[in-house]
């Protein structure tokens, strides 16, 4: 039995995602030209990016923690957060491409936000290449933490500031937060959108916790 006091957020996350999946497909949405029913993808596509950013920020925080106090536990937490973030980044790109194919006629366009997202994914892939190419555990943890901090700050610039400087972008949500074009969002859609974001972030943290536990067990087995 799950302990309610400890695991309430896992249950809430599951319920919120389930709710957003069902409500996202069944509520009444405004019929906008070009987008039409595909606007429902907002619930799924945008929440992927929110989740990715949250996980990358978690990885960033744990990397700083590691440099302040080098513990193998902190390093594992940072890497697993980056891994989960990368996974949600891929999901974000795939859902975005499906949406773009419907509304813009092709899966990829040369747009600052899309380029920023793809670059972020390249950077985190590079992070994992870096980790796999250093053998010494302590050095691997330290060097990759340093790279993660450097990369995350530059990526914040790329994803957070560059799209606003861009001269033209067809991706919505340009003014204000690039991922959050909710100023013009219909109130009933917000009822699904916010729970979806929250639910997915909770699920991501859950995956992260499980991955840390698996990794810790693997390390313990390796030590035996």
């Amino acid at each position, binding site marked *: 039995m799950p302990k309610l006091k400890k695991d309430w957020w896992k249950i809430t996350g599951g319920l919120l995602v389930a709710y957003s999946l069902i409500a996202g497909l069944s509520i009444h949405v405004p019929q906008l030209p070009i987008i039409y029913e595909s606007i429902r993808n907002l619930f799924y596509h945008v929440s992927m990016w929110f989740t990715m950013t949250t996980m990358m920020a978690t990885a960033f925080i744990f990397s700083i923690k590691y440099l302040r106090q080098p513990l193998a536990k902190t390093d594992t937490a940072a890497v697993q957060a980056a891994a989960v973030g990368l996974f949600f980044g891929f999901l974000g790109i795939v859902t975005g491409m499906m949406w773009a194919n419907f509304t813009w006629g092709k899966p990829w366009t040369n747009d600052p936000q899309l380029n920023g997202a793809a670059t972020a994914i390249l950077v985190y892939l590079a992070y994992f290449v870096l980790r796999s190419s250093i053998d010494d555990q302590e050095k691997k943890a330290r060097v990759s933490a340093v790279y993660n901090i450097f990369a995350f700050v*530059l990526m914040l610039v790329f994803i957070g*500031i560059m799209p606003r400087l861009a001269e033209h972008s067809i991706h919505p949500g340009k003014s204000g937060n690039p991922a959050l074009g909710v100023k013009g969002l219909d109130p009933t859609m917000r009822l699904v959108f916010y729970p979806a974001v929250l639910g997915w972030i909770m699920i991501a943290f859950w995956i992260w916790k499980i991955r840390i536990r698996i990794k810790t067990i693997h390390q313990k087995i390796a030590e035996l």
Partner: protein
Amino acid sequence: MKQIYWLIRRDILLELRQPQVISGIILHALGSVWIAYLAFKGIIPTNTWNSLLWIILLFSAVHSSNRAFGSDSGGRKLYYYTLADARHIILAKIIYNILLILTLSAITSMVFLLFNGNPILHPLRFILALLLASIGLAGILTFTSAIASQEARNFSLMAILSLPLTAPLLLLVIRLSTSAIQPTVASNLSAMVLALLLLDILCITLAWILFPYLWME
């Protein structure tokens, strides 16, 4: 300050003592320009001209700053570690790399202009783009070179680590240099220059903060 000066001086002296290395790098850049000239048969539309030049400059910068930390042996690194402050070392290396990349890109651009035509209308903007790009690239590339030098087989690692990180800088620089070759007046020129300047400062500050963690062994 004095320590930084001596560290830069040491790098320059070492470079001048091995002229074959720096001439090799210049030759590499010139070779890329020549290949570009042959591939495009000398007729290049201005947009392509711009992108091509910056790609060549980026790759020669990656190539040249790969040696920032790669060229020193382990024992010599330890010797510097006992002599100098880590923050002074990274600052000296970055300043040295700024000079190196700036010189290299000035030579490359001149040869590129010679072969592929000169569409530049506002030379000042173009020079500004070169300068700001050199500073930012030196910051990012020196730092990634320090990371990659932690691992023995490091050339491809250096490229993998640095290329995606240079993307924001490169995009801004290309936009600034586009405004130098297009007759239409760019609307947000000052915003672009400011953004580039801030990005340069950010890269160097990050390298300055994080380098001591790499240096301790």
